[in-house]
């Protein structure tokens, strides 16, 4: 009876250790993949912003708000907040509004934020055709960043999952 109980306790303990390791690995992998998702959302937001400005001729702050809400996620919130802080009524440039919005929202992708900062420095000073050209340049840059991240994130995420699971398993073996 006691021997069976010891064996059962060992089995449950090992399962818990392996599960803990696996969960830690999966959480790390999810964090890595979140950056890729943010960049994808940013690309969608820029496409939406370009359409709003070139076809609907929406004013820039309103276009930023709409693109942000269409994209979703932290980067979408950042764009929407930038849109609500910018504009003539607030007497702020897009660049200044972005700085203020970054103090409130911090997206997980520093690369997307860097592209957005460069874009914001050029928005609001020229006609809509020029603005669309700047946005298209940013879309191209975001696309190349996304392609670069895709392979890297997939590799890293798989590595973290394996590391978590196997570290848990090896710890369980040592503790048994």
């Amino acid at each position, binding site marked *: 009876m006691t021997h069976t109980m010891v064996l059962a306790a060992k089995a449950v303990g090992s399962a818990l250790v392996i599960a803990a390791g696996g969960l830690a690995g999966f959480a790390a992998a999810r964090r890595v993949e979140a950056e890729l998702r943010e960049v994808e959302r940013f690309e969608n937001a820029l496409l939406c912003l370009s359409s709003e400005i070139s076809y609907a001729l929406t004013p820039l702050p309103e276009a930023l708000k709409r693109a942000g809400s269409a994209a979703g996620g932290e980067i979408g919130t950042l764009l929407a907040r930038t849109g609500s802080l910018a504009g003539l009524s607030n007497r702020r440039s897009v660049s200044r509004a972005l700085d203020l919005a970054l103090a409130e929202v911090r997206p997980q992708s520093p690369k997307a934020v860097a592209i957005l900062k460069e874009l914001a420095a050029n928005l609001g000073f020229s006609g809509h055709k020029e603005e669309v050209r700047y946005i298209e340049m940013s879309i191209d840059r975001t696309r190349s960043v996304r392609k670069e991240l895709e392979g890297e994130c997939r590799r890293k995420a798989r590595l973290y999952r394996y*590391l978590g699971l*196997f570290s848990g398993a*090896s710890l369980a073996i*040592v503790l*048994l």
Partner: protein
Amino acid sequence: MLSADLIFKIAGLAIIVSVLHSVIKQAGKEEYAWLVTLTGIIVVLTLVTRLVSDFFQSVKSTFLLP
């Protein structure tokens, strides 16, 4: 602990360490892969230290070494 248990334990660790080594190597981080292998070796050495010590004691007593 039974010696057979220890052998199975070392075998399990070896399998896990070899899988981890190949996974990390595939991810392009060869230096970390070697670090994991080295950690595995150190863990296994820690497990067998007492047995090695016992073995040397037996050798000494068998051949009447000082």
